[in-house]
């Protein structure tokens, strides 16, 4: 027992002693990007002409390229290009980048940038019409340009200035470029200019910028949807210039009081509103089983024309003149109107994922109030809008 106790104490002592000698280690492994950056073998793209790592050096009417051997940043010479793209579709220089070996940039995308040095012969500029293009072996290309935030001193002048193009800045996701299979880097030039370029390489770089969320679209996929909430989303009503159209109060939500006399010759006979805050409204999943419902307070049914507008598409406006079949007389001078979206002429050609505006034009002398606009479910015959039992 004593022996066991002694052995235990010795082991414990060793443990304590060894604890004191333990080296510090991080809780986590060193960041993958740092180690992968160090492992990335193709860090040099251009330092001097001897590397023979360029193509597109042949001079033509749009570009003059030379290797200049004075005032280099590194090596025995540097690249000088003078271009005028007004007479050419394409002005570019390509970097073979380690003789076209396959470059896997994926592990270093978040931690690396292309760095280069540039200068001009005189003056000062802060913008060069120049793009950086990465090409993969599938022929796909992504682009990035010079960002003021990564232009040293915010300008290009007669001293060598550092430019960084973070790999994250390339639009490789949008262009579906395979960043693990990169072939080359191209420098593309637009308009006209001249530039000295030297020391193009891959460097470590942290890119602290995010892509923000899309906020311009509103998707609706269920009913009912109240339309045109908020007077600021309406137009056509401005009592400083015309009393033909005014906001009314007879209905829930926004309504318009229409008072158009035959003698009135102005064209204040149209109003419109955004379905939802002037966003690009997407009702593509429900449009075919939807109708616009609204109410009218009038002595008789007015003659009105309904329009829908989209932000995009070949056919950006569709319309229909409403007739008696669109209305149900609810008594006391109230009519309910139903306008199935499939009853609008050419509705198939309309971009229902880009809905912009609903508009009404009053076609003849009229006095009525119109409001309580909604998008409702409608599964009836579009030609018989008031006869579906579901309404």
């Amino acid at each position, binding site marked *: 027992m004593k022996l066991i106790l002694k052995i235990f104490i010795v082991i414990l002592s060793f443990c304590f002693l060894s604890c004191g000698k333990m080296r510090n280690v991080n809780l986590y492994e060193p960041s993958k990007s740092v180690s992968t950056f160090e492992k990335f073998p193709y860090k040099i793209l251009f330092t001097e002409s001897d590397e023979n790592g360029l193509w597109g050096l042949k001079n033509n009417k749009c570009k003059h390229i030379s290797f200049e051997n004075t005032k280099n940043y590194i090596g025995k010479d540097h690249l000088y290009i003078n271009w005028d793209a007004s007479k050419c579709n394409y002005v570019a220089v390509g970097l073979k980048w380690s003789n076209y070996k396959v470059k896997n940039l994926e592990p270093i995308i978040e931690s690396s940038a292309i760095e280069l040095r540039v200068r001009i012969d005189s003056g000062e500029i802060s*913008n060069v019409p120049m793009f950086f293009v990465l090409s993969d072996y599938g022929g796909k290309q992504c682009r990035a340009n010079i960002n*003021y935030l990564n232009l040293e001193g915010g300008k290009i002048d007669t001293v060598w200035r550092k430019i960084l193009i973070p790999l994250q800045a390339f639009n490789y996701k949008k262009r579906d470029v395979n960043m693990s299979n990169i072939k080359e880097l191209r420098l593309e030039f637009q308009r006209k200019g001249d530039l000295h370029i030297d020391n193009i390489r891959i460097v470590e770089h942290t890119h602290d*910028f995010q892509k923000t969320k*899309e906020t311009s679209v509103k998707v609706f996929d269920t009913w009912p949807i109240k339309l045109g909430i908020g007077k*600021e*989303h309406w137009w056509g009503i401005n009592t*400083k210039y015309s009393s033909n159209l005014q906001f009314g109060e007879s209905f829930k939500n926004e309504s318009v009081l229409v008072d158009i006399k035959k003698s009135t010759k102005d064209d204040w006979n149209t109003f419109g509103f955004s379905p939802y805050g002037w966003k690009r409204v997407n009702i593509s999943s429900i449009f075919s089983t939807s109708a616009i419902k609204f109410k009218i307070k009038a002595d008789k049914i007015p003659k009105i024309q309904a329009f829908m507008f989209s932000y995009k598409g070949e056919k950006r406006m569709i319309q229909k003149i409403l007739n008696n079949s669109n209305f149900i007389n609810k008594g006391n001078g109230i009519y309910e109107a139903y306008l199935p979206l499939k009853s609008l002429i050419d509705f198939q050609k309309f971009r229902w994922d880009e809905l912009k505006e609903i508009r009404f034009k009053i076609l003849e002398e009229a006095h009525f109030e119109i409001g309580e606009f909604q998008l409702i479910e409608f599964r009836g015959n579009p030609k018989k809008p008031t006869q579906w039992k579901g309404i």
Partner: protein
Amino acid sequence: MERNINILFFLVINFISTITSYSQVSRVEVTTNSSGNFELHRNGIPYYIKGAGAKDHFDLLVNSGANSIRVWSTNNKSLLDSAYNHGLTVTLGLHVRPERSGMDYNDEYAVKGQIEFLKNEVLKYKDHPALLVWGIGNEVDLKYSNFKVWETIEILAKFIKEVDPNHPTMTVIAGVDPSKVFYIKKYCPSIDILGINVYGSIEKAGINLRKFNWDKPYIVSEWGVNGPFEARKTSWKAKIEPPNGLKADQRQRRYKDLIEKDKEICLGSYCFLWGQKQESTATWHGMFLSNGNPTEAVDVMQFCWTGKWPESRAPSIKDISLENVGWKKDHILAPSTQATLKIEFSKYNNTEVIVEYVLYPEAFSDKIGGDIQKSPDPLNFEILNQNDNELTFVTPKSKGAYRMFAFVKNKRGQSSVANIPFLVK
């Protein structure tokens, strides 16, 4: 002796005061007059903009009665200096990249980089004595889908309010539209003036701004004849351009009946384009030819700005036809056949005119919004007979789309031009 000293003293004082006033920043503000109409005031004096989108021909611009130019970006300081030396003010554009050029307004890096760059440009130019109004962005709304661009416009306008209290802010949109007016009203409160680029849509621009509840002033920042994007096309998609004479009449009516009459909220205008550019054709918007000769549109603008026609007027082509078929119709011809082109023009007070014809391949382009287009080179063709009003020529032997231009000029080079597209097949 004393008289000479007095004269010398007066000249010195005058010189010093001139130099001093030239080196001062102009104080420009939007205000309302006793009638409740918006007015632009420059150094306390009402300033109605009689302007042009222009980069050169400043002497002729000033002689024609203009007082301001609009430029679209800050990439050429010498333009401001030159404008200043000619006594012209400048609406200076801050080039906010439109989405259609590849800018992604969800890309925080690109957005912040652009903002910082443009803030720096504001600091560079805010004290330039020619500066009249800041034009923050041009047609950023054209074919856009991300409305966050208005955040960038507001950040820049707000920055200008902080660093430059002397110059109003304007953003320029392509055509008038209720959604754009809503976004600018709601998200760009630091914008003082709405700039509208309107061609065909100028006809209803004033009333539409009121319908869309725009409650600040506006400047017609680009206007002219209907643009190529509004033109009828031939069956082979070539855009049909009206002759210069008809375009001149349209310009004059639009200025007199639409721009000049809206004293309530319009602060003035910039005609497009006091220069030359390729936009579907080389002659569509430009008021000068590529050789620098002024067209009759220049005369029209002098009449609009001063109420007087120039003593020497350009001739004016009123009509053009090919094989006795008018310019509005399709013209399809066989290869290597004889064809006759006719023009009708007014000489005005010119005793002699020179008529020239030039053949070009059709310059199809899908570029929009004034984006840069390349000009085609002229083609050789065989002329069989030519007089002042008629050209008989041999159509090209190669099938394809072409456009024949007719130029009529006086001894001073003042010109009128018309063209007619035709298809050889």
